[in-house]
């Protein structure tokens, strides 16, 4: 059984705004991130992703619930595990009047990382040569790279990245995604919080989807996508109207789309073929329609919004 790097049980965060409004940002969230690979953390804006990450990292106090990193309860034992964790939370945050190198050096020295570690981190994110410029003069992409370089200083076993490709140009996005994939393959556990679904589908092995502060689904990306899309078949026949009537009469849900039929039901492809052939309706196209992560995400978060509204 593989180790679970991040665990959260019944995690809850409530707070009051300055105007006295009571907000529940995270409610009874359970989360488990296995060791190794890239784990996506998906949810619409305001769903509680960043708050959850901030609680895991000790930047915000949980109102209720248990959290563990590498099996150690946090925030109590955070100092014992923090050297194994690198994180970027929301936007990069550095001292604007210091150079990129100075910012990194101060962080490195605070955990006893020698200056060669700073050189290596800067080199890895492609900031060598620009490292002595002031941080406030950096583009958003350079700031993002510096933040990622900071996470690499500790040579972490767990990397928590909150929207890491924000502000990067296409080449930068590709580089960072390649780096995340490479880190995941090399044994580092990466928790990637992102609103870019294609990015998560491309990069992540597993995913947790949250909405309204609750966990909606979790598992391997392929399993989630498969579970929500495998039952739909795209059927091409010469007489779609007759085929639709016949399939509906046999318990299938059928919708018409551009001269094709989308057939939902418990049966397999051979049963659909047999049914239609019996009526001399011969299939010239029969393909399973696989949902992508976006459709799964939209379906889940729509359901969550509806149920939250009902409550």
């Amino acid at each position, binding site marked *: 059984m593989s180790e679970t790097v991040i665990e959260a049980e019944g995690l809850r965060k409530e*707070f009051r705004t300055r105007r006295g409004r009571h907000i529940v940002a995270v409610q009874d969230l359970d989360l488990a991130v296995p060791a190794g690979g890239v784990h996506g953390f998906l949810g619409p804006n305001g769903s509680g992703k960043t708050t959850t990450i*901030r609680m895991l*990292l*000790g*930047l*915000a*106090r949980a109102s209720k619930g248990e959290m563990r990193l590498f099996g150690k309860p946090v*925030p109590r034992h*955070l*100092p014992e595990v*923090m050297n194994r*964790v*690198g*994180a970027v*939370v929301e*936007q990069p*945050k*550095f*001292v*604007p*009047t*210091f150079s990129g190198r*100075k*910012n990194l050096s*101060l*962080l490195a*020295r*605070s*955990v*006893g990382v020698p200056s060669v570690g700073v050189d290596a981190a800067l080199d890895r994110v492609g900031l060598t040569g620009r490292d002595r410029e002031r941080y406030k003069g950096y583009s958003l992409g350079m700031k993002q790279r510096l933040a990622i370089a*900071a996470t690499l200083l*500790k040579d972490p076993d767990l990397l928590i990245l909150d929207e890491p490709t924000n502000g990067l140009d296409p080449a930068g996005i590709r580089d960072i995604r390649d780096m995340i994939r490479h880190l995941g393959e090399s044994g580092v556990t990466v928790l990637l919080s992102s609103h870019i679904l294609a990015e998560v589908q491309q990069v992540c092995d597993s995913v947790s989807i949250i909405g309204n502060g609750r966990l909606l689904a979790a598992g391997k990306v392929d399993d989630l996508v498969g579970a929500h899309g495998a039952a739909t078949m795209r059927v091409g026949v010469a007489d779609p109207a007759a085929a639709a009537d016949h399939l509906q009469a046999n318990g299938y849900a059928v919708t018409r789309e551009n001269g094709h039929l989308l057939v939902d039901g418990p049966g397999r492809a051979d049963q659909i073929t047999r049914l239609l052939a019996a009526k001399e309706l011969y299939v010239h196209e029969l393909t399973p329609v696989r949902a992508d992560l976006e459709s799964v995400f939209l379906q889940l978060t729509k359901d969550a919004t509806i149920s939250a509204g009902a409550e």
Partner: protein
Amino acid sequence: MRLVLVELTRFRSRRAIALMLLAAVLLATLFAFTTIWDTRPVNAADVARAEAQVERDMSSRWFKQELASCEENPENYSGPGATAEDCAESMTPRPEWYLERRQLVLDDVRNEAGIGLVVLLAGIMVIIGTTFAGADWASGSMSNQLLFEPRRAKVWLAKAAAVFVGATVASAVILTAFWAAMFVAAEVRGITTGASVQEAIRAEAFRGVLLAGVGALGAYALTMLLRHTVGTVAVFFAYAIAGTAVIAALPISGVGRWSVGNNVTAWLQDGYEFYDETIACRRGGGACDQMVKVTLEQGATYLGVTLAVVAVASLLLFRRRDIP
């Protein structure tokens, strides 16, 4: 210790802090220069200038008219029994009228420029303390730092140590340089300073350095509490200035002992005695002649307790609060 050294580097590297320290050095230089200049010995050129001025005064129409008027009615000018000779004696300008200049007396410098410099230095260190902490909150880099060292008390204490050490060392260097310049000037002019005065200067400078360090530390603690540089400076100076005015307006006899200004003065000057100027005193009719004394120990206790209350509140809140 590693974290303290990192914070000291951060302290040294901040441009705003470097500029404030430069301002402190320039201020001390200005104080030293004006003190030395205003007490410079009279030289031949000064005497020649004074004699020339006397010549100009004596040849002026105004002087001649006044002298003639006086000689006609000397009693109108110099009182009963005055003679015309008295007019010439009292009205004729003399070079020494233009050569009056104070001597460099280090005990006087201690009570005037010395105290003024320390108070201004402490004010600068207050701003340094608040900007040091305020920059971490304003840039959001505090959360980044806590991702590397999550023990918040340790982070708070390391930053506090850096602020206190940085402000204390800078103040010690500046005050030492100021007093060294004063002693050298006195030495060059052949002015001797007694051992008791020297000891008083040393003690006052030491207390001034501590005040600057404590001021920076208090400002740092308050900024960590309020998370806002400008807000902290406003609270700090409102407490120091408006607080003093409010205390003075309270109808309680001897309430001035709770004023921050009086306690700072007591700390710097080894005790401070002042007239009770409360409303209650004024209502009694006439001027208040009751003196209130704040001792060095009372001043130290007042400042120490104030610092401790702010520091403990700041540390406890920092350990518990959510970090943006």
